[in-house]
């Protein structure tokens, strides 16, 4: 009987394509917008992800997200080091600096200062120059996107210089780095150099990066740091989610994307539901004939649900596929962020399931109440 249901469905091509279109439209819009949203959210935490090595970030207790830097006294480093369970701890500077380029123009940059001795937090994607070159005077390593932004169309060249806070900075390396939410160039340097590039402040330590001793849980060490120093200590994952939470709760980003996703859901439901209902009404005599010939209501119910499911699977596949193609195209051709984790696929699948269920339910009622005697009426 499911075969008959399938043949009935695809036999009316116009209606079938109409129903599928509704589901595709919804799946595409939901998956695409949700992926862009996830892409944006991943940008907000890219700097945390790029800092490899430390499992624990220590910061002022009022810090709400990664760019919300509230400087600490340098002595906090030693207090953190003294907490039992801390394997090691280093300083980390993060701030904004204004660079003056040789052409006379100015550019905002994200300045990251790495521990002078260990370079903990150094970028992993240096493809021109080396991390060790940071030990040279005035040395900085710049991300490739930033380099192309400052010197568009020009080949990568080490030794180029610019000024930050009236101090000369020399590019000794180019690295791959994840794009940031603000899209500013990123420059890495030694901590001692960074505080010279940064505008003068009484306190300059942004974060203490630390790690737990083997056998001690990072969360436990975080708890101890908080207890003994009064600072906020978070695991890398906790800091990522704290940052994302901030953007979710304090900005209009989720609302804007949520509205688009909701519109996609509603329009998709309306198109698919209405077309599926019309398809059922058009076939009501056929359903009546099947009932007259001895098809039970239960089988009719399964047939309609199978039709809905079939439309859902095809529509979901096409919609998500188109969204993925969109992401693949824009990733190379624009600066639009696009990240499609499995959760987006699952959410889209759930939304599509609801759409086809609603569409099916509208039709199910119609076919279940149809009197099989309808077939005797001319």
């Amino acid at each position, binding site marked *: 009987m499911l075969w008959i249901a399938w*043949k*009935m469905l695809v036999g009316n091509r116009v209606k079938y394509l109409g129903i599928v279109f509704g589901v595709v439209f919804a799946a595409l819009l939901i998956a695409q917008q949700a992926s862009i949203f996830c892409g944006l959210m991943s940008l907000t935490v890219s700097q945390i992800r790029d800092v490899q090595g430390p499992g624990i970030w220590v910061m002022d207790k009022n810090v709400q997200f990664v760019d919300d830097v509230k400087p600490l006294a340098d002595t906090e480093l030693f207090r953190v080091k003294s907490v039992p369970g801390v394997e090691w701890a280093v300083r980390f500077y993060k701030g904004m600096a204004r660079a003056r380029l040789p052409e006379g123009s100015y550019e905002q940059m994200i300045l990251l200062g790495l521990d002078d001795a260990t370079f903990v937090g150094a970028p992993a994607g240096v493809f021109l120059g080396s991390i060790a070159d940071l030990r040279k005077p005035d040395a900085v390593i710049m991300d490739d996107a930033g380099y192309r932004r400052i010197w568009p169309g020009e080949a990568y060249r080490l030794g180029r210089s610019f000024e930050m806070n009236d101090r000369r900075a020399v590019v000794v390396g180019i690295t791959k780095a994840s794009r940031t939410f603000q899209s500013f160039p990123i420059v890495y340097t030694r901590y001692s150099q960074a505080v010279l590039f940064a505008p003068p402040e009484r306190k300059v330590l942004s974060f203490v990066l630390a790690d737990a001793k083997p056998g001690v849980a990072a969360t436990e060490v975080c708890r101890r740091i908080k207890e003994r120093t009064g600072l906020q200590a978070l695991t890398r994952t906790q800091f990522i989610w704290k940052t994302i939470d901030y953007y979710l709760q304090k900005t209009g980003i989720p609302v804007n994307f949520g509205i688009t996703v909701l519109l996609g859901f509603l329009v998709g439901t309306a198109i698919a539901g209405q077309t599926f209902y019309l398809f059922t009404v058009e076939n009501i*005599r*056929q359903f009546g004939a099947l009932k007259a010939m*001895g098809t039970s209501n239960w089988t009719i119910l399964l047939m309609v649900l199978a039709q809905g499911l079939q439309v859902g699977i095809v529509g979901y596949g096409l919609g998500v596929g188109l969204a993925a193609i969109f992401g693949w195209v824009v990733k190379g051709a624009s600066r639009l962020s696009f990240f499609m984790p499995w959760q987006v696929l699952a959410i889209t699948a759930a939304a599509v399931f609801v759409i086809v269920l609603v569409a099916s339910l509208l039709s199910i009622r119609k076919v279940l109440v149809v009197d099989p005697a309808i*077939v*005797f009426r001319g």
Partner: protein
Amino acid sequence: MTGLHTLDDQPLSDFAVRIRGVTKEFGAGGAVMKALRGVDLDVPYGDLLMLIGPSGCGKTTLVSIVAGTLEPSAGEVLVLGKDLVAMRPGGKVAFRRDNVGFVFQSYNLLPALTAAENAAVPLIIAGWQRRRAVEKAANILAELGMGDRLANLPSELSGGQQQRVAIARALVHDPRLLICDEPTSALDAENGRITMELIQKIAVQPDRAVIVVTHDARVYTFADRIAAMEDGRIDAVTTGPRQEVKNG
């Protein structure tokens, strides 16, 4: 020859259909419409009964009740020895599936299925494997002269050919009761005659009964018995030409 509506002197086992005092009312309160007003009718096995009468006289209502697709308001309905009034809805569905074949006025073929697939539908409903069902349907269609049209969709067939597919569909599962609702009304005289000949040749069997609802006086010659309805009652049951030939 005008006769009694019932054949009470014969044993119950001779009858495919026995109806007594069946009424059917639609609506409620002051808007009640009486479609059937106490109908008595017998249809013996091996008979082709034609149900005739003007539009709105209750033919469709009566045949719907006999088919088990409509509940009577009162009365007794025995079909193939089963009391349809006492039967539960699920039982009626299974009863129709196993015992009743339908030929509808507007064919009601599924437009997306081929002729052979359409004819196989009752077997698929009964749980047959699709391939086996289509094979059996193809054999019956071939018997009906449709062997070269098995793979055609209904839209590619003439009215007469579609009606033959409908007949094949009605007979494919060997039902003991065949109900035909105006099977010739959409056909020209020649196709109507061919259709009735096919029904008579293939469907009328000693262990099966056929009820044909019709307005078409041209096909009365195919009847064993003709029941004339008027205003929700059976006015008269006459012996048809076939029965007269049978009786010598």
